[in-house]
């Protein structure tokens, strides 16, 4: 099988696209740059929406990006089962695009927070977490000013009962409801996370350790099994 091709989307103001491409390479797949203004997904096998401040995060994080021409292609493809991971700003965009429920608002402490965060993997039934074990504790950096996950009670209940809370904070840094750090859609192909697994790939750089690699190796595992 030839290497899986993972699209890495760049919006104006995207920052972590080079990190995202590196993560894809580290896992043994081929990163394919995707430009927000294009309408062509270039036949990729999966898509990674990296972090950053698309459109400066002006108005609301992700609010303007969700209207990008590329999103017009991505949304139906994701609904049809294309694996999509959004981290940080990518998560915010996925929520704004209604591919994931809920919203991300200003941290309860009001400040931007960059720190190495302890997390628990709650679901391994998604395209992006199958390489972990359920309940596994990992340390992955977070860095955001608007990462407090909110949703109405009904949505929260549905997420919890459907096993769609993918990652939870151990020591809630931002006031997220139910300590939620990441969620998936019903099918499990679309995952959004505030933490940055692409910054936890190597011992030399980024946060401590390599705990983030599993998100990307999971994808390859999923695709081989598919």
């Amino acid at each position, binding site marked *: 099988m030839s290497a899986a091709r993972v699209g890495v989307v760049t919006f104006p103001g995207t920052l972590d696209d080079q990190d995202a491409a590196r993560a894809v390479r580290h896992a043994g797949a081929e990163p394919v740059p995707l430009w927000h203004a294009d309408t062509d997904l270039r036949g990729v096998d999966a898509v990674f929406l990296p972090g950053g401040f698309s459109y400066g995060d002006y108005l609301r994080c992700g609010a303007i990006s969700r209207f990008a021409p590329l999103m017009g292609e991505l949304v139906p493809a994701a609904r049809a089962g294309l694996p999509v991971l959004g981290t940080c700003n990518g998560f915010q965009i996925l929520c*704004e695009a209604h591919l994931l429920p809920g*919203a991300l*608002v200003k*941290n309860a402490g*009001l400040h931007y927070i960059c720190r190495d965060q302890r997390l628990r993997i709650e679901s391994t039934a998604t395209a992006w977490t199958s390489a972990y074990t359920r309940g596994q504790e990992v340390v992955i950096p977070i860095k955001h000013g608007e990462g*407090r996950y909110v*949703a109405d009670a009904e949505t929260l209940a549905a997420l919890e009962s459907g096993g769609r809370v993918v990652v939870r904070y151990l020591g809630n840094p931002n006031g997220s409801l139910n300590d939620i750090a990441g969620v998936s859609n019903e099918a499990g192909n679309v995952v959004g996370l505030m933490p940055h697994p692409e910054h936890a790939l190597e011992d030399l750089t980024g946060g401590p350790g390599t705990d983030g690699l599993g998100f990307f190796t999971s994808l390859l595992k999923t695709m081989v099994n598919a």
Partner: protein
Amino acid sequence: MARAIVDVMLKPEILDPQGQAIARALPRLGFSGVSAVRQGKRFEIELDGPADEAALADIRKMAETLLANPVIEDFTVRVEGETAE
């Protein structure tokens, strides 16, 4: 040339830490008599044409899809000088 105003506030059930921080700071600064503060956004939109029904419908659409996120926010649209609808 008219101006429309869109006010966007977090829904009442969503925690507003900015408003709370202000409310908490007030007594320290010597202000009393305030029971709560909420912080939202205000957009001033300059129209090329008049603020007729068609323009306002457009702005309502804009508020709904772009300026506010209905999952967490409520909004009101009005033409400057009029009271909130």
